[in-house]
């Protein structure tokens, strides 16, 4: 079937089988390899993308269902080749990963959280990433990364007078 999909701000016209999941479409048809398949039954969160700004599991929906909505993948939050967003940089600063497989999903979950809640508590962060499994880190340095990113992103918008 023919669908139109907006991914990272670009509209793509595609032919896909109706049964094609959004994840397979992003990876295999459009080449956005940053979305990863982990369990393909909606538990692990490695396939997380933003769907109109909300973190969703791209393995649990069909590509056709995403027509008309704005999809953002990890490639879409990376500012430029070789350049990191504040959240990506914070993950590097705290080493909030090891193998890197769950990382794009984690970072997109963090984006969704911080867009709504610029001052999350530890509990808010734990809740926001609780649908994203990481087998390497035990989550501590991921929680720290998101907390650090939040702090830095708040700083960006701080009026100079506050620091004086």
């Amino acid at each position: 079937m023919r669908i139109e999909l907006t991914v990272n701000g670009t509209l793509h016209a595609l032919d896909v089988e109706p049964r094609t999941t959004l994840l397979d479409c992003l990876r295999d048809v459009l080449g956005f390899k940053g979305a990863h398949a982990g369990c393909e039954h909606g538990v692990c969160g490695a396939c997380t993308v933003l769907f109109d700004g909300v973190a969703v599991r791209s393995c649990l929906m069909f590509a056709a269902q995403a027509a008309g909505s704005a999809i953002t993948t990890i490639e879409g939050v990376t500012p430029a080749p070789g350049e990191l967003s504040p959240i990506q940089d914070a993950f590097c600063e705290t080493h909030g990963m090891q193998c890197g497989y769950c990382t794009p999903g984690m970072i997109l979950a963090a984006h969704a959280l911080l867009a709504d809640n610029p001052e999350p508590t530890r509990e808010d962060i734990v809740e926001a990433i609780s649908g994203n499994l990481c087998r390497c880190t035990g989550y501590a340095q991921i929680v720290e990364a998101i907390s650090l990113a939040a702090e830095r992103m708040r700083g960006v918008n701080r009026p100079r007078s506050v620091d004086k």
Partner: protein
Amino acid sequence: MSAHGHHRYVSADRRVREDRRFVAGKGNFVADIELPNMKHVAVITCPHAAAHIKSIDKRAAMKMPGVHYVLDGEELAAATLPLMTGLDTPHVPRRPLAFETARYSGEWVAAVVADTRALAEDAAEAVEIDYEPLPFVLDAEEALTGKVLVHEAHGSNVLLDKTFVWGEVDKDFAASPRKLKLRVKWGRSSTVPIETFGVIAAWDPWREILNVYASIQMPRYADQIGAALKIPSSSVRVHYDVDVGGSYGVKRGIKHTVLCGYLARRLGFPVRLIEDRLENMRGGDAHGPERLFDVEMAFDDQGIVRSMKMRALENLGAYAGRSPFQLGKPIGSIVGPYKINSVEYRAIAVITNKTTQDAVRGFGQGPTNLALERCIDEIADVLGLDPLEVRRRNLIRHDEFPYLIPSGTTYDSGNYEAVIDKVLAGAGYDELKGERDRLRRDGKLAGIGIAACLEPSGGNATFEALLNPAITTSTFMDSCRINVDGLGAITATMHTTSSGQGHETLVGTVIGEVLELDPDIVRVVRPDSLNSLPSGTPVGSRMAIMLGGAAFHAAQKLKEKLVAIAAHDLGIPLARAVYAHGDVHDRDTPEKRRSWAELIGIAHRNYHRMPDGFEPGLAVEHVYQVPTGGTLPDKDGRVQMYPCFSFEFHLLLLAIDPDLGRPEIVRYKLGHDCGTQINPKIVRGMTMGGLAHGIGAALYEEFAYNDDGQLIAQTFMDYLLPSSHEVPAVEIVDHETPSPHTVLGQKGSGESGYLGAPAAIANAINDAIRPLGIAINTLPIRVATLGDMIAAAQEKMKKGE
């Protein structure tokens, strides 16, 4: 020799260079690799716990759109050799596809190749296989009886049964006033990485090379592929620059690779098999140990343990793989951190109709630590002593290192009391007990859990020779090559894949440290297997020690070469030439110097200025043998195993809601000593990750089977991995007792946390339920089991009143 002391880059809080690509989604995972004309494989699995394969009808499937081939076990068995196993058990052959008989539910029986994975799965449903179900056996003790044989031709279900006696066990038992017996069971779980195993094989008939891209973590991978496919290993090119999405031991898809390698050669195009989660859980052959311990301890009234008898019965699943050796590694630290005078150890491995196992983080050490640590707590209980005090009385003291244990390994170094004291300094033990008692007064069941455990590291796998005398391997190595190019840029190599351990950062940091240059200027690359030096791969918590050691020595060789070139060019004796930050100067006349750029120029372009007999250029390599390695077992079954022993001390407070049976970790402190930490961010991450994995093994994760022999934990909704909610904030206290055997004093940390957390949690739960007169020694300790036990005990107490 060791060079401890002040470091510039080692132990500094530096970023991990690999992270940049991962946060951008630009890792190079196997499923990200697209080869032209690549086709996709789906496997068909046996639905029975054991069955005779009567016939396979491929005709309907072959006619379906996009289908290229359906392969069965008969064709594959005729064309390939069985997979390598560690034991000499010729009548227990392991093959990628079952041939004649399938021996567990989920075992691969046939494979379909099609244009897409979806088409291959469609066609898989159209392959008609006629099975005749056979009797099966699931339980290890039942398998021991041999009533049902998993492999008829082997004659029994026992693959390994060895008893070792180190020291005068009978005498020590006779002399000990107290004895205690305990049965402990470690449930079947595994590491279950978020990325499943995947492999792409592409045969180049004109160069006669099989290109392999895989999410692999396994020693001798190319050798094993070549052997099974009957081609030289020099015809196998494993691409090591594939990022592995987590492994922790299990990413050993040799059967997947031989299957794909055969198909790629047979069909003439690249084929790819990426496990889906079901395949990974069931037929991926990546389960971990399922071990039953019967332990007997001999001790005195003060709780001093004199001797131990341990019987470990391992339920291997249907084929051997490498898993029987997981009974062997714990021999190298069979007494844990304690001074136990003598040990009897009986290791039995049986085959059953369950999924085949492979190596899991710790390679059998976690289960052994659980058995030991549960026993120590029970000793404390029968004597009415504090479990921490009993541990303190038995610990090897700092001034007793190096310490020889009965099974022949000498522990390198340790300061267990210091680590424990540091942990207790923050949260006083009495304070924690007070908190426990407060919780108890509030109606909760609360307990304190302690575990003091070792992490053998460095990967000297002489347990292979101990369990199978036909193996005489005493060489365990890793390598690094450094090339400084004509413009002075430094490129170093490593020769294996990584699965998140930060090995590129490790190599860069160590070389930077030796050369006194910013590690970030050291490029680290991974040549493929045909361009590589030997590597033992990241197993046995060895890479900081082994790859770090190789990089250190290669950098030393480079430095020595630079110094010799400078001394020659300056016309001064070698002894006066001093290296600093890439330049070399005369000790007596410091203004006489050759800069890095000048030395590069001489090495690359001015052969007339080189010392006689020197090779031009600046290329060095070092192949590093495991420290303290190089011996085989003696006639009494004693041998030095791993060179280094990291220590971890777990202390936690746990509360159980008595109505629900749900345990909640209230506080968790971990003391950790892995010697010099090369990158503290990496060590902390691995330790926390290991601890989380340990929480899973203790409370949630189990590959459970029903009575029909069906695996009933096939998804992440049945096999529960800890999420951010299940992993508490943990206070980690570091201590550094350098190893005298390693180049920077480092020890391993790849298994830390995991090796003690299950024991500590089991101890905490038992402390919590002890007032009810009940105990639990089977992992995982599920909420439902615990809840039922508590309810029954409370009921009984009520009736008793």
